[in-house]
Structures are given as C-alpha cells and as structure tokens.
C-alpha cells in the first residue's frame, strides 16, 4: 500500500517544551488508524501540524502521489488538497441552518467570486440530502444548528467533513460526550467511511478504539511508542507502563 501521508522526523518546541520529538509515521490510502496516547502525548499538536495550523521546527510532511510538502501550504490549500479535520469540541456554525452548514462544506469552488454567484444546483441539494441522511440529520436540515444536541452537532461536523470529500479525515475524539447509542452509531460511521478514504481517529478511550478494530499508533511524549493491532500494543510493556504506571 502506498503512503497517502508521510510524516518524517518532525519536532516542535513550545517555549522550550518539546511537544513533538522526531515523530515519523505513514498512513496508507483507505486506511483506518487510531492514534492513542495519554494527555500531552502530542496528539493534537500532530493534527495542528498536518493541517497547517502549527509549523514544526524541523521535519517533513509529504502528501499524496506527488509527495507535495504540506508544510509549505496554507491551511485553506491543505484542506483543498483533500485533508479534512474534525475538532474535538464540535465546531459548527451555530447561527446557520444545518443545510447552510453542509452547503458551505460541499466540495465546490472556494473563491470569493465563485461563492458570490453560487446558487445551489439540484445535484448539490441532493448531495446535501444524502449527507444529512448518512449522519442521521435528514429531518433537521432547516433547523439552526445551534439548537442541535451535542451528539447531533458532532455528526453534523462529520457530515461537513464528508461534504468536503477529503482523502484523509483527521477526527479528534469523536466519541467525547456521546451516549452509548451515539457511540455505536459513530463507530459504524467511521468504519464505513474508511472503506473509501483514509481515516485517522485520535482517541484516548480504549474501549472505543477496540470497536474500531484497526491498526493503532501509541504516542508518548511526542514520538511513536508502539504500533500494531490493539492487542499487540496493549501487551507492550512500555505501553502498559505509560498507561498504568502513573
């Protein structure tokens, strides 16, 4: 499997604190991967680097067949290249309707003038309907998204991510604050999505990761501690020490 995203030797220091040290790993096309690690392991910083929010001190982040260097691109260009991100806290545009939120995310020209003259086509409306169906919000399209429940907001955000048609989705703690039923729905959704694109889930809930049933990367103090199946990494004595030793 060829690598879709290749992170090699990145390091970041915030005010003398090394958040990421010499981190390297690869994610393949259509791969589902979970990244786990205790607080402060560098999970969120890793996502910030890949999406262009934070610039690392050294290292390379290469993307796709052309091996484009993501570190030289701005956030909006990285997103257009096919890298989507879901935040830990659900971030949807609360005073706009579910439909407007999805329309905004839909993969269409992103320029100011293109948007000024944009009017949703039949195909776009149909696609919004499909997406809403997929994330279970079909009957909520005209609602203001600020009125949705916490779990519904999470799904709306996943729906917006899908609307972008990314090749790689970075999903930060998707199950946080969800009820058991909502968690199961989310697990199914993510496993399904990974059939057609790469999905990276950052999570520290082991039970949730077990249900995803995928390859796991354990981060600790800003670098990879172990990698493999969940059973494999949970038997690793170093992982046990990091998770249980303190």
């Amino acid at each position, binding site marked *: 499997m060829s690598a879709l995203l290749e992170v090699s030797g990145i390091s970041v220091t915030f005010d003398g604190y090394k958040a990421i040290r010499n981190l390297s790993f690869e994610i393949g096309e259509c791969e589902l991967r979970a990244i786990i690690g205790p607080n402060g392991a560098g999970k969120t910083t890793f996502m910030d680097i890949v999406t262009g929010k934070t610039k690392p001190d050294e290292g390379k982040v290469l993307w796709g067949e052309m091996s484009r260097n993501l570190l030289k691109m*701005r956030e909006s260009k990285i*997103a257009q290249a096919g890298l*989507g991100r879901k935040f830990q806290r659900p971030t949807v545009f609360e005073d706009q309707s579910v439909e407007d939120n999805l329309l905004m995310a839909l993969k269409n020209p*992103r320029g100011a003038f293109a948007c*000024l003259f*944009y009017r949703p086509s039949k195909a776009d409306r149909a696609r919004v309907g499909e997406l809403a169906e997929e994330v279970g919000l079909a009957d909520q399209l005209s609602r203001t998204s600020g009125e949705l429940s916490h779990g519904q907001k999470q799904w709306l955000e996943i729906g917006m991510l899908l609307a972008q048609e990314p090749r790689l989705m970075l999903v930060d703690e998707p199950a946080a604050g969800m009820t058991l039923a909502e968690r199961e729905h989310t697990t199914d959704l993510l496993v399904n999505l990974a059939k057609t694109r790469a999905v990276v889930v950052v999570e520290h809930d082991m039970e949730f990761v077990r249900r995803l049933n995928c390859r796991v990367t354990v981060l600790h103090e800003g670098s990879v501690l172990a990698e493999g199946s969940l059973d494999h990494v949970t038997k690793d004595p170093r992982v046990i020490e990091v998770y249980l030793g303190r």
Partner: protein
Amino acid sequence: MRQSFIARNPSILIFLLCLAVFTLAVTSMSHAMGAGVISTSFVKTLGKTLCLCLVAIAMDLVWGYCGILSLGHFAFFGLGGYMIGMWLMYARTEIIVAESLANAAIPPTPQEVVDAIGTQIFGVVGSSDFPPIWQFAHSLPAQLALVVLVPGLLALVFGWLAFRSRVTGVYLSILTQAMTLALSLYLFQNESGLRGNNGLSGLQNLPGVSASQDWVSLWFLWGSALALGLGYVLCAWVVSGKFGSVIRGIRDDEARVRFLGYSVEGYKLFIFTFTAIIAAVAGALYYPQAGIINPGEIAPIASIYLAVWVAIGGRGRLYGAVIGAALVSLVSTWFTGGMVPSLPLGFYTVDWVDWWLVLLGLSFVLVTLFAPKGIGGLFDLLSRRREVDQ
C-alpha cells in the same frame, strides 16, 4: 422549497417601500415644490442622513456580518468626498475665472487661466500651483472614477497588509484607527495639496447649474435615496447566499472556515474593499450637500460614531444599521443644534449641546449590556410574539 432572492428577504421590499414613501413625502413638502413645510437646509440634513445610512450599511457588512471591527471606514467616506470635491471646486472656479477674464483687453492664454484658477483655489495656503494630485480635477468622469479607485485601492493595500499578517480583533481596530488618524493628520498639512485645514469648500454650488439650492438639495436627496436603495439591495444580495454563509462563518469561527478550505484572508479583503467603496460613494454624495469637507471630518472619532450607530441599530441586519444611523444622527442634530431646551435641576442646568455626548455614550453602554441586538432586536420580539399568537 427554493424561492427567489426577494421572496426570501421580505425586509428588502419593506425597506424600499419606506424609502420611496419617505423620499416622496419630503419632496412634496419641500420649498422647491412650493409647499415649504420642510426648509431647504432640512432637506439637506435628510439627504445627508441617507448617505450616513449607506455608510452604516457598509459598516454593518464589514463588522456585523464579517466580524471585522473596522474603526476607519470614515476615512474612505471622507476620501470619496474629497475626490468629488476636487472637481466641484475646480470646475466652479474655472467658470468664475473665465467670467472675470472675459472682459480683459488681451484674451488670456490657457496657462494664464490655469494659473488664475490655481491662485483662487490655493491662495489660502499661500500657493498658486496645482499639486500633481489635481491632474484630473478638470474632468468629472475622471474624478468620479477616482471616488471609487482611491479609497478602493487604499482599502485593498491596507487590508492586504493587515489580513495577510493575520491581524485580528482589537489589534485590527487599533490599526484602522491609526490609518484614519494618519490620513487626517496628513491632510491637515498644507503640503498635502488639498488645502490643509481649510479643506474644500463651496461644494454645494454645482458648476454650470443655475438652479436654486431648493432644487439642488432635492436632486441630491433623490440621488442619495437611489444610492441607499441600490446599496441596500446589493448588500442584501451579497449576504444572502453562500458568500454570506462564509463571511458569517468567518465572524463566528475563523479557523474552522480555514479548515473547510476557504481562504479567509481573501474573503476579508474582498469585504473590506467592497465596503470601503460603498463608504466612498456615500461620502461623494454627502459632501456636496454639506458644502464643505476638511480633514476634521475623518478624525478617528467619526469612525467610532459609525460603529456606535450600527451597534445601537443592531448588528448583523442591514435595516438595523439604517435605523441606528438615521435615528442617532438625526437626534444628534436635534440635540447639538441647540433646539432642545436646557434642563434646570436647581443646582445645575443640563445644557444638551454639551450633555448629548454623555447621553449617547450612556445609551451605547446600555444597548451593549442589555440589548446586544440593538433596536433591530425589537423586530425579533415582535415576530416571535406573532408566532406565539398563531
């Protein structure tokens, strides 16, 4: 499910209707129509108020919708006024000079005519030479183009530098204040070529037009009403579609919009420049009615007033900006015009000319604290009550 743009925004029709009724009412009651209920100077005040409403709409677009608290949009308003003022002054002085030289024994050379105009205009600042920026002052089309181009270009360059460096929030507000202050201070200098603190005057006299001010004031009222109507529809259209969604998204969560793949800087620059141009057009209509423009007009405080109007009227809705600008500026004219009787308290007499600012400041604080949606928020209460009744 899909409706036309007007049908989705019923407030547009209501607004246009109100504007048309207002304009017709003022016209029929004016001196020019022989009614004389409304004095010519008050027609001018109303015409100017319409221009202030237009610049308030621009402010609402940039602040209320896109979340950029620009405290410098009056600079663009003033520049628009200066650009049209240059032509008005030049063309009118040219006619006066031509008349006075008409009876000269030897016909004057073109250079002599230009020199005479220069002496007339720049005598007050001890000069008679035209600075290079007056290059196109003889041409109305050129100066009209400059009304749009000069403020537009300033906004484009300023915005590009500020947004590219990701200056946001209060820092951007301070930067825009600095811009308008710097421009004002520069124009105060005689060397700026725009007559320093004298500014441009006599702008109410249209060159080559012999009609009385009764009529001129009406023309400008109509022109201002037309500009406000068009500006309102244009802005409503801009914020109605996906573009509107994106800029409101930028206001609420800039980083999220970026991760959706939109170039936030490009959108901000577009809105900043677009609203600067609207402000400039409003200024170009305002100052011929005011008759004079000087650098004091674009002092930092003017742009702050603009923000206060929009806040009191209600941000994020265009009619809110119009209500705020019209109400506050008219009430301000009333209070500062000395028409309000002083309030004797026995130990102290409240003179409203001085105390009006305190009243304005107080209402701004009260609106911000207790009615963040401003006067426009009252319409929400009304429509909600109707929903409950049904």
